């Protein structure tokens, strides 16, 4: 653990946060997910605003802990985490990098049409919905009719 003597820039902090993985879907970072809504210095305190994906997402507490741990590891000790619910989180805030990583991992990224564009495993467009809900609040359960593999689809909200 290093001790910081000068205040790191906001850009630097965004970079650090982009290295913190989402606890449920570790292939994307919290920044990719679009849930870090603000980073600013208020005097000597770093204020990070985080927005929840779903109201009851059980990962919310872990996410806050992970952010705090990462920033402490970079030598910051005066950190304030703020929950910001307005405007509400939307999958539009997910980065292009995040979307590509999701698909590579086997999770179809959100689409405005409300369903996956293609199977993340074989790219077939012949897909069918199994359930509107999936293994986490942010996902639904789909299946490919060609390769027959089930897959998760990141819901569009």
């Amino acid at each position, binding site marked *: 653990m290093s001790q910081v003597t000068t205040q790191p820039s906001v850009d630097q902090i965004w970079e650090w946060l982009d290295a913190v993985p989402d606890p449920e879907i570790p292939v994307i970072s919290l920044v990719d997910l679009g849930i870090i809504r603000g980073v600013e210095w208020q005097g000597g305190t770093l204020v990070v605003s985080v927005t*929840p994906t*779903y*109201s*009851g*997402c*059980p990962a919310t507490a872990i996410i806050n802990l992970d952010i705090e741990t990462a920033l402490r590891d970079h030598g910051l000790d005066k950190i304030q985490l703020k929950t910001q*619910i*307005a*405007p*509400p*989180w939307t999958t539009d805030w997910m980065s292009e990098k995040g979307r590509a990583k999701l698909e590579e991992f086997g999770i179809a990224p959100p689409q405005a049409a409300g369903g996956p564009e293609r199977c993340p495993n074989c790219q077939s467009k012949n897909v069918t919905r*199994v*359930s*509107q*809900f*999936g*293994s986490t*609040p942010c996902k639904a*359960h789909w299946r490919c009719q060609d390769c027959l593999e089930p897959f998760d689809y990141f*819901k569009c*909200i």
Partner: protein
Amino acid sequence: MAAPLTDNEALFQFLLRMGDNTLILGHRVSEWCGHAPVLEEDIALANTALDLIGQTQMWLGLAGEVQGEGKSADDLAFLRDVWDFRNLLLVEVPNEDFGRTLMRQFLFDAWHSIQLGHLMKSSDDRIAAIAAKTSKEVTYHLERSADTVVGLGDGTAQSHDFMQTALDYLWPYVGEMFTSDPVDAAMVKAGIAPDPASLRADYDVLIKRVLTEATLTIPDSDFAHKGGRTGAMHTEHLGHLLTHMQWLQRAYPGASW
């Protein structure tokens, strides 16, 4: 005769009504976890319950702030007894079977989605923000509960009977959503929330469309059980529910995670 409500007391009561609805329904739906007929339904019910309990944290969290006695959402959820709850009677009735659970969910989701649509325009920014956040989830709940009501209502003869029985049983609990009292009058006056009665027309259009598609008959009665949202009288079921939900805090006061 009780003293007239202050604006702050009315706002507190309004927030309890919102938060207690989502808390009690969330708990009821969570009772299915591990018991639903198929895995996908189990996951769907658990996710819905999770959303509702998450929404409760926001509503009761704000209620605690407005009350100004330093109470958290958890304090309000776990340290009140039956007479202090302000949820609709509809959400406390037992699950009974999958059909009744989904019919109850649909009848509530329909009201909830219309109510939140109005609350997004609330004069209170905190309420508008919670409504904007939660209405996205509730739109999803409504889509699912409406689809399931249609699927089962217009399904086999057996599933149709289950759904009609559920609708007949739950119908007398629908009217309470549209009753108004001095708390509502204070909310309307302050531009915080709509008059419940004003939501009825939109509600009737929505549920008629879905229930007709589901080949179900809406009972021809406007009798309504009341008393949940005012706290005047709950059903016997709420007390039983609380003994489960609040057991830990009752047995080990102050226990924390």
